[in-house]
């Protein structure tokens, strides 16, 4: 039971992350590799907020959101002149910078030692210290993010974003301020990824910088490409598939050391096969 709860919590957190990435990659065709950075900023804001500053979980989430808005505001504005290759390279650069700040600003983050003893959230004095309670919280937040995604997806703003991903200049000719639209989606996606980071930090109770490297951003890319680009259900399905995979490998009895290698190979092959045979992913609404 605890095992399933654990899986469910991680699935929800990655569902939120995948939705946040689909807001930029799927909706607007922005190839962002910055997601791990915002995820990390959210996690560290919650960790430091709750341990050092003694803040409530939700206030810490707000702190992370503010930091992410400022960071994404600056980076997003620079990125907004591009869409694909340059976007990927520059956003990856940002992700690397954030990782090295987390690693090296030891006074703030304790560097490679990480931060221990991050408490569980409490609401109105009730501490959410059971896994069931925490799963409820995660699913609740996943539900809200899912709703936000679908709202944007069906709105005129979302339609403009989808025009941008195929032909930004055409969207401009139709009257849309495309750079602003790209920046707004980037900022929103950063905030959402930060919330996932806060949940993760509080759940795991210990974080260190290694979780928030560029490769985590690439893993999220894998999730949405396999689950489905530009689709809210696809993002969630992708998270479900990719998080269950290691469990499946374990279930069929592969020793851990082999399973870990196999997992990478399977992810990689799945990506290649998807791009070749099903470029929209399982539930996708857009192919790159």
């Amino acid at each position, binding site marked *: 039971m605890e095992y399933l709860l654990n899986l469910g919590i991680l699935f929800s957190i990655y569902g939120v992350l995948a939705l946040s990435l689909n807001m930029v990659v799927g909706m607007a065709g922005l190839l962002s590799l910055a997601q791990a950075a915002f995820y990390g900023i959210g996690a560290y804001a919650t960790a430091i907020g709750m341990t050092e500053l003694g803040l409530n979980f939700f206030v810490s989430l707000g702190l992370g959101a503010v930091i992410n808005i400022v960071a994404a505001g600056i980076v997003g504005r620079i990125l907004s002149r591009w869409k694909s290759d340059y976007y990927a390279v520059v956003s990856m650069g940002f992700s690397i910078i954030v990782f090295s700040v987390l690693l090296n600003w030891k006074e703030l983050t304790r560097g490679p030692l990480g931060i221990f003893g991050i408490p569980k959230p409490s609401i109105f004095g009730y501490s959410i210290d059971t896994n069931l309670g925490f799963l409820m919280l995660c699913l609740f937040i996943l539900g809200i993010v899912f709703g936000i995604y679908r709202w*944007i997806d069906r709105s*005129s703003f979302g*339609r403009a974003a*989808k025009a941008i991903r195929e032909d930004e200049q055409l969207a*401009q000719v*139709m009257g849309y*301020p495309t750079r602003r639209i790209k920046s707004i989606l980037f900022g929103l996606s950063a905030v959402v990824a930060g919330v996932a980071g806060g949940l993760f930090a509080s759940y795991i109770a210990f974080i260190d910088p290694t979780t928030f490297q560029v490769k985590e951003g690439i893993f999220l890319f894998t999730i949405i490409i396999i689950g489905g680009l530009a689709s809210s259900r696809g993002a969630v399905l992708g998270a479900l598939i990719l998080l269950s995979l290691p469990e499946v490998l374990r279930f069929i009895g592969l020793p851990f050391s082999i399973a870990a290698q196999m997992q990478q190979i399977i992810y990689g092959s799945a990506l290649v096969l998807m791009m070749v045979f099903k470029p929209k992913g399982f539930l996708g609404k857009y192919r790159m």
Partner: protein
Amino acid sequence: MSVSMSTLPRAIETKGLTKTFGGLRAADALSIYFPSGVATGLIGPNGSGKTTLMNLLTGTLEPTEGSITISGKTFEVIEPDMLRDLKIARTFQDGRLVNQLSVEDNLLLAIASVGTRAGLGEIGIAGYGARVDAMLKKIHLEAHRGANAEDLSYGQRKLLELGRAIIQDADIYLLDEPFTGLFPAVVEQVAELLGELKRAGKTLVIIEHNIGLIRRLADNVIVLDHGQKLAAGVPEDVLKNKRVQEAYLGV
């Protein structure tokens, strides 16, 4: 008649408009105007700079030099996202649609709110249903409203692109070869739609190689050659012009 053209208000006027690509002068000190409420045919041989001019007028290319005056306001640089406010709609020679969006969404894109808050407040077809229905009927795509634009035939794509411009209810229409490659029946449909715009008093700029269509639709003609203005005026006069015949009609 050509005298009366010059006395009409000018929807668009350029002064010394120039665009160079390396050593090539694709637009060469163009000082021309498009009279308001008139259909102007923009003609000239392949590579004479017709599309380049249209791109400069819509901000999809930045001029090397010169200025553009639209409805009385003068610009050195035009950004494409100003076009909606300037009430300018355009089509492209290579037919640009959002391929992975539906026919309906391609039309909605042209009229939905551009502001963030307003745009987020409009869900789905919002209040635009009647306009979209009417346009789908006009361009004979009612049966395809949910189809992706990429699944349309060439002629349907041309009609959708024109419909996307018309639904904007702009004042000025810049149309880059709206007839090229169409079957005669579709040519008639497009001619019909342009006729309607003319009757509504819109300003039209039509790039077209077919002189018959120009004679039929345009009341004013501008001839470009090597990025320069070769002639301008009423079609009968301009098409009789010796230099035009040499450069363009190959006579």
